[in-house]
């Protein structure tokens, strides 16, 4: 015989209220933001695990944030990137891979 589950809305609400009260009380007593702290820890954990993804995103952001003068064309921008990445071989390689990926995506 299947076990019947009884869900109590009032019980759920009471639990949520008690949780909120506990968090507020802890925050008042210790001065620490529990939920924010928890989110920060979770975020840092994911960041540590996904470091390669973060490095890739960092490289893309770096390119996006290269300032472009209003009158300059793409050759000027490429020249600027080339100049700024002198003697930075690994970063240069990443930039080339990104550009190649962009060209491939356009072709497709």
């Amino acid at each position, binding site marked *: 015989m299947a076990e019947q589950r009884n869900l109590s809305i009032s019980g759920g609400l009471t639990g949520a209220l008690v949780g909120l009260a506990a968090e507020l009380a802890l925050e008042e007593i210790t001065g620490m933001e529990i939920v924010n*702290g928890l989110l920060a820890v979770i975020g840092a954990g994911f960041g540590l695990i996904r*470091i390669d993804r973060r490095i890739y995103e*960092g490289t893309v952001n*770096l390119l996006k944030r290269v300032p472009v003068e209003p009158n300059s064309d793409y050759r000027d921008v490429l020249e600027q990137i080339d100049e700024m*990445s002198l003697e930075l071989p*690994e*970063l240069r390689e990443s930039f080339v891979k990104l550009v190649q990926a962009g060209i491939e995506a356009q072709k497709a």
Partner: protein
Amino acid sequence: MLGLNSLSKLFRKTIGPRIEALGLLPHRYYLHRALDALEEDDIDEAVRMVTLAGNDKKDARWRLVCQQVIFRCRVLASQHQKQLDRFETEIEIFGKPSKLNNTYLRLQKAEESARDILRSYELSLFNQLNVSKHDSVTAE
């Protein structure tokens, strides 16, 4: 879970920064923090974190993050240089207006000092990169 979080938060607020400064935390932690700082253009913190993560300078991830910070330093320094050039051109064309003279000089000094700070950061990281390159050549 709540207790664990409180403990970790307490750790981060009390002895965390001291342990962080000792370079005892995992290598990836510092890289993660360096990338965060770089995203916010907090170059000082990014350089500090990259330096702390630099125990293994042959590590490909460290080298890439280090080069990202150097690249950003160069971009920002070039912006300050352009601003300085603009000031000089304006002064050459319009002459030094007496009332604005002090303001111009102050702005010029601020731009110069920002550029120099960024260049010193770049140099410091570049030396670290070259040390790692030199080490790998010696090992071969």
